[in-house]
């Protein structure tokens, strides 16, 4: 027995070193591992909230039709019925938030329509396509109502 523990102080010193090492490790860990790490997995739980906090720029169709109640009824009459407003009008979350501060944007049909309807062999066969050089003129909005493309645009009085 006495021979085994004859040099106790070595053990004590060793234990002290270990304890110090563990302490340093725990301190470093507390310092470097961010809050919430490991709550859901090997990542910082707060990153989920960070990702959620990003601002929205496209308000979504539901927002638009809350105020523009007449447009969906008009759209329903034509083949553009299933296209959502901001597919043509662009991102308008700021306008939907406060229409007095940010105006709605009226896209120019001359630029807008060909983005979808320009003929291309890679497009599905059934999709209505035109070659502007052969079609009836560049001012699409003269003959097509953008909301109800099968109709002529309504004259505004």
């Amino acid at each position, binding site marked *: 027995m006495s021979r085994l523990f004859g040099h106790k102080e070595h053990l004590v010193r060793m234990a002290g070193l270990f304890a110090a090492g563990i302490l340093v490790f725990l301190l470093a860990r507390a310092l470097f591992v961010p809050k919430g790490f490991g709550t859901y*997995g090997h990542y*910082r739980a707060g990153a*989920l909230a*960070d990702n*959620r906090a990003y601002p929205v720029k496209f308000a979504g169709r539901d927002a638009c039709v809350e105020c523009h109640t007449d447009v969906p009824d008009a759209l329903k009459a034509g083949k553009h019925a299933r296209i959502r407003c*901001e597919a043509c009008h662009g*991102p308008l979350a700021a306008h939907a938030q406060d229409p007095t501060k940010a105006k709605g944007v009226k896209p120019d049909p001359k630029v807008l329509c060909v983005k*979808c309807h320009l003929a*291309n062999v890679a*497009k599905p066969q059934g999709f209505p396509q035109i070659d502007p050089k052969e079609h009836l003129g560049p001012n699409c909005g003269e003959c097509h109502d953008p909301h109800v493309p099968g109709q002529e645009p309504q004259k505004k009085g």
Partner: protein
Amino acid sequence: MERRAFLEAAGKVLLLTPAAAAALEHGLLGSTENPPEYKQADHWWGMAIDIGKCIGCGNCVRACKTENDVPLEPYYFRTWVERYHVNPDDQDHPEVDSPNGGYDGFPEKYRAGDGTKNFFVPKLCNHCAHSPCVQVCPVGATFESPDGVVLVDRTYCLGCRYCVQACPYGCRYIHPERQTVDKCSLCYHRITKGLTTACCETCPTGARMLGDLKDPKDPIHEFLRVNMVQVLKPQMATGSKTWYAGLDGSVR
């Protein structure tokens, strides 16, 4: 008090407490105008893409860049559209192009009726359930969220580029200003608020469809049932949650 009376009274109190709590929440603390709080455990997100409907208009590419502040140049994308030109005699070597990711549409390059197949393939992060990119991150700055979205922790990313290399689909890039990795977040800031992704919001033909697989009423279940769907590079066993209907065998 008689034992019976006590039990009756206690029972009433027990029944009324949750009702009172609910009444308190709705009445006294203001109406719950916000949608019910988002619970990660109730969702499992994925995306379905119908190749036969894509017209290559580039609306998704433009909307994604706007919504997520992806720089216009250099040419990095969270989502982009590829054009395939396949000669039936040489299925294994399709000609693929994606001018500016499809941002400006696709100038006509091929002729109709020469026997080739031509179609568009929208690409984005596949939100794999067993992502190689997550596995290689040394610091846990990219991860699969409890609701099935592969996200990046910007504040924690070192910019070491391991994940850029690891992604078999080429869906990651280093943001030139932040010098941290960036990728499709499936518009996590939108879908957790009840909105759809920017690309789905602006897709005119419904070629893209965000789906919540834990919602039994979500139309994605019907889509996956009635269509022959495939994932990209199934041999990599990434557990991809982006399903393609009508995918040609030549697509990689």
